[in-house]
C-alpha cells in the first residue's frame, strides 16, 4: 500500500550552487537522488511531497562540499505480507505467473493457483478452469494476497497467492473480444 513518511537525508552540495537559489538546487537534487529508489525498509519512493526542514550546512574538510541534513515528506509504496493487491499479469508459464502491482513484481506459483485451474501452453500460455469459465493470461487483472516479500537493492519481489476466498481474476482481456 501507499503511505506518507518523513525521511531524512544528508545532501552534499557543491559551493558553486550557493546563492539565492540554493534551496531550489537542494530540492531538485533531492528529487533526482531519491525518487524512484527502493529500500527494503520503506519500499519505493514514488514522489516527494515537500521539504519539511533543511538543517544547517556543514563544510566537509578537504573537499569544500557542504552537507545539509534535509527532512522531507514523501509518498512510498511498499507491499506487506497479508495485503490484498490488484495486479496485472505480465507473464504466464508452467511454474506459475508473474504480475505487476504498481512498481512491484509478484510471482504466483502454480501451487498457489486454485487446483481446478490447469496450465495450457497455447499461443498465449494461460491457466484455465476445466469449464473454460475463468482464464488467466497476459494482461489479465487479478486480485491476490501477498504471502512473502524479498527485497533487493533496486526492487521488491513478492510471492502471492490466489488460492483463497475472493481472490482471483477480476477482468480478463480475452473475455471482452
Amino acid at each position, binding site marked *: 500500500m501507499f503511505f506518507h513518511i518523513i525521511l531524512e537525508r544528508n545532501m552534499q552540495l557543491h559551493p558553486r550552487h550557493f546563492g539565492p537559489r540554493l534551496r531550489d538546487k537542494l530540492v531538485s537534487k533531492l528529487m533526482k537522488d531519491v525518487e524512484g529508489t527502493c529500500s527494503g525498509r520503506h519500499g519505493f519512493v514514488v514522489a516527494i511531497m515537500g521539504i519539511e526542514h533543511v538543517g544547517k550546512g556543514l563544510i566537509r574538510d578537504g573537499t569544500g562540499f557542504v552537507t545539509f541534513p534535509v527532512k522531507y515528506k514523501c*509518498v512510498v509504496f511498499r507491499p506487506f505480507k*497479508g495485503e*490484498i493487491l490488484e495486479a496485472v499479469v505480465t507473464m504466464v508459464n508452467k511454474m506459475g505467473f508473474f504480475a505487476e502491482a504498481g512498481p512491484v513484481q509478484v510471482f504466483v506459483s502454480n501451487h498457489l493457483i486454485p487446483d481446478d485451474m490447469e496450465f495450457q501452453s497455447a499461443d498465449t500460455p494461460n491457466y484455465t478452469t476445466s469449464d473454460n469459465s475463468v482464464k488467466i493470461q497476459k494482461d489479465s487483472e487479478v486480485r491476490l494476497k501477498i504471502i*512473502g516479500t524479498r527485497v533487493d537493492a533496486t526492487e521488491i519481489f513478492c510471492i502471492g497467492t490466489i488460492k483463497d476466498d*475472493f481472490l482471483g481474476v477480476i477482468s480478463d482481456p480475452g473475455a471482452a473480444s
Partner: protein
Amino acid sequence: MGVLLFKCFQHATVQCSDKVPLRGKDDDSTKSKKGRKVQFNDEESPANFSSKSGEKGAPLKGGKGSARKEPAKYELNVQSELPQNSQCVMDCEAADILQGIQEQMVFLSRDPTIKIPVSFDKGLLYAKTGGRYSNPKTVRQALEGLKKYGVSDAEICVIANSCPENAEEAFALVPSLKAKKNKIHEPLEEIISQLVASKLPTENHEE
C-alpha cells in the same frame, strides 16, 4: 536369499530418501511437503523482520493440510513493520496526491536533468486503477468510524483498496478483522454498503 538382499536394499534406499526430505517426492508425501514448506518460509524470513518468528514453526507442526487453508498465517502485520512517523494512504487518496504532483512536474520538468522515474508512472497508474471510489474524503470519513472498534489504519486501507462488496468479503480478505467480528460486523456492513454506492462505474466490471 536374493529376495532378502533385495528387501535390505529397498530398506536402505527408503532410509536414504528419508534423510533427504526434499528429494523424497514419492516416499512420503507429508514429509516432502513439510520439507518444501520449511524451505519456503526460510526464503521469506530475511524480509520478515517482525516478531513473527515464534509463530513460524507452529502452523507447520500442526495439521499440514489445514495449514495451507488457514489464512491466519498471512495475517496483515503492518503496524510492526511500518516505520515510525508514517501514515497509511488509501489508493484513491494516493491517486489524487500523485495526480497533483504530476501536474506540478510539468513545470519542474523544464529542468532537463529531472526526469520522472518509472516507479512514479507505475505507482500513479496503479493508484488510479485501484482507487475506484469517487470521493476519497468520504471513504476516509466512513472507514474512520471503525477505528473506535480497534481497527488499525492499515486494515482500513486494505479494506478501502480492495473495495469489498459486503462485510463477508472484507472478513475473508482481512482475516485479522475476524477477531473483532462480533463488534464490527454490523457497522462494517453498513459502511460497506455506503461505499458500494459511491463506487465509480468501471467499464471492466460491466463487461
